[in-house]
């Protein structure tokens, strides 16, 4: 089920504002893998995802941390933004002022899958935190590129909703690299789990060989 190498880090180091964050990370990701990246906040998860994204930005649909929506624009526009690069600028500007019916249908379909079709023309800023996160997920789904990189894509959703969204992402994207903080989500949805601690990789195992207890000790008893 796994295929070609899509990401390859060799002894990668990275810093943030001059402060080193990642040390000697070796990581190879093959097409078809579903990887959960775990670790406490500050362990370097976002930085690692950033390194991966930088390797092939043209093949990745991104769900950034904190949703990164344009709040004054409608949910429709925010989701449509996932494909700005695939239309002419003139067509994009036209859609900004007067959304094309066919695009509305497409976007409505994607929103339906995350349970937001009723909010399609609401301003993104007027939505709740969970709805904003689902809008951000919908943007990545609509983007449709084969690899999905998500930085805590379900952190604002409850466990059931989060699980549904993760299943959805799995069904639509071939390769996934997700930063997650919920151990159960990771064990259930990922087939490989990478744990970072203080910027170093401390676990990189198939999910089937790990138990909740193996992971919990890195979170100091977080449920």
């Amino acid at each position, binding site marked *: 089920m796994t295929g070609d190498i899509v990401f390859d880090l060799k002894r990668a180091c990275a810093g943030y504002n001059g402060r080193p964050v990642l040390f000697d990370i070796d990581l190879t990701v093959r097409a078809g893998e579903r990887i959960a990246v775990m670790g406490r906040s500050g362990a370097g998860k976002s930085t690692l995802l*950033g390194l991966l*994204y930088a390797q092939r*930005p043209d093949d*990745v649909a*991104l769900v*950034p941390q904190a949703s*990164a929506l*344009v*709040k*004054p*624009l*409608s949910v429709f*526009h925010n989701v449509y*933004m996932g494909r*700005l*690069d695939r239309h002419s*600028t003139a067509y*994009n*500007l036209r859609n*900004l002022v007067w959304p094309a019916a066919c695009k509305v249908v497409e976007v409505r379909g994607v929103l339906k899958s995350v349970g937001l079709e009723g909010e399609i023309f*609401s*301003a993104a*800023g*007027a939505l709740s935190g969970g709805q904003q996160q689902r809008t951000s997920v919908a943007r990545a789904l609509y983007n449709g590129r084969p690899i999905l990189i998500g930085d805590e894509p379900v952190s604002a959703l409850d466990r059931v909703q989060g699980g549904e969204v993760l299943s959805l992402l799995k069904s639509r994207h071939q390769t996934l690299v997700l930063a997650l903080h919920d151990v159960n989500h990771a064990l259930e949805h990922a087939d490989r789990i990478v744990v970072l601690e203080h910027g170093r990789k401390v676990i990189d195992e198939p999910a089937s060989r790990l138990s909740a207890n193996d992971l919990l000790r890195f979170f100091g008893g977080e449920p």
Partner: protein
Amino acid sequence: MNRLAFGNTSLWFLLSALLCLAVADIAVTALNPWAEMLRLVRGILRPDILSIEAWSVVWTVAFAVVGVGIGATAGFLLAIAFPHFAAVRVSAMVLRSIHELFWALLLIQVFGLGPTTGVLAIAIPYAGIFAKVFAEMIEEADLAAERVLPDGTSAISAFAFARLPEVAERFKTYTLYRLECGLRSTLVLGFVGLPTVGFHLEGYFKQGKYAEAAALLGVFYVLIGTRRLWARPATVPFLLVGSLLLLPEGIGGGSTLANLARFVTHDIVPAPLRAGDFGSLATWSAFAGWLQAIVWSKVLPGAWNTIVLAQISLVGMGILALLLFPLVSRQLVGRLGQPAGRVLLVVVRSTPEYMLAYVLLQLLGPSMLPAIIALAVHNGAIVGYLMGRHADALDYRADAPKGLNLYAYDTTPRLFGQFLAYSLYRWEIIVRESAIFGILGVATLGYYVDAAISELRFDVAVVLILATVGVCGVIDALSRWLRRELRIPTLATRLADAPAR
């Protein structure tokens, strides 16, 4: 929900401007504007540096430094009383609502054409502005330290220890920035006869001596562009003392005290009341008739034209600002484009709108068009420059679009609230400037003020100036109300509040 409100508001402003445009006189009446324009461009390309009047440059700086210095000191004292006394707030509002040029025209009657007039014409309105801005800064300061002071600490000690240190830095930045505005104001004062750079510029432009004008204007841009180098805390004492010593001699206008007494007790007293028989009904009915005539024949047409000019200019400014701001955003035009855009916008915004209108008037002939272009371009450059700084301060996501897509889908929608905050704030400023532009011949309120003063009817001039204050007050209230309704009342509106580079 907010987006709709933003969109609707913008649409209403656009519509009102289109309506105003339909009734406004915007014809080009000059017979051959292109030939004159060509001579202007030729003059700019070959500036005559030898013709620069060095003393006018010195006096320009001196007027600005002393005027802003006195204004800031008075404003600081007023700011302390500002939150406690409504009377202080109202007087500060009136002081700042009357433009420097109106102050100058009134002060000349008392102090003659001399340094006192020039300094006070800047100091008085600036005191009103400083009072408000300083008071706001004090209010916004972090006051945690003040709450833990021991009981019984005197008000002055509390202020000096717990408040002043918190706000001193912002006061300093704002005051030094205001010096830049002061330099622009002195230029305008030159147009009424004070010996600043503006005085010579007016002469040069009137005579078509564009090479001389370009050189002098160049010096002015350098002064403003290098302001951070020569106006810093360490140089302020030298600047102040030097300026006081170097201020020009005045042209005497007789005894100041006698002038003041005549001005206050006779000149500005409404003509029907000068007889002094306040008990008689005839006096008051004459006064009512006098006032009614002014309102019908001057205030209403003047206010209408002021609003028409301001509305078109405001929307013109908005459109220009939205088109120009990408030029100063590194995110949108890149590392190489940004510095060039920045120079362009700084030069344009340093050009005083009054002088720009004057030049355009020479080129295009009398109509509302020169004033519209001047106001829209000057204010558009200011707002565009600020928006560019905000655009670079935004956090963009790693997969953000690029170019025009970024501009249309990301940057502009996210900054639109900020754009409206700046625009609504400048609305009142533009109305005040529109009133002033009457002195150039557009029939706004300033036109009638100028006419009344040249007929020596100061009582009428004062009524008209107060009407201007009233119109500005209404627009200011409307602007505040809109900013509250749009939920953007806390966004930055002042240059000093924009994100730093």
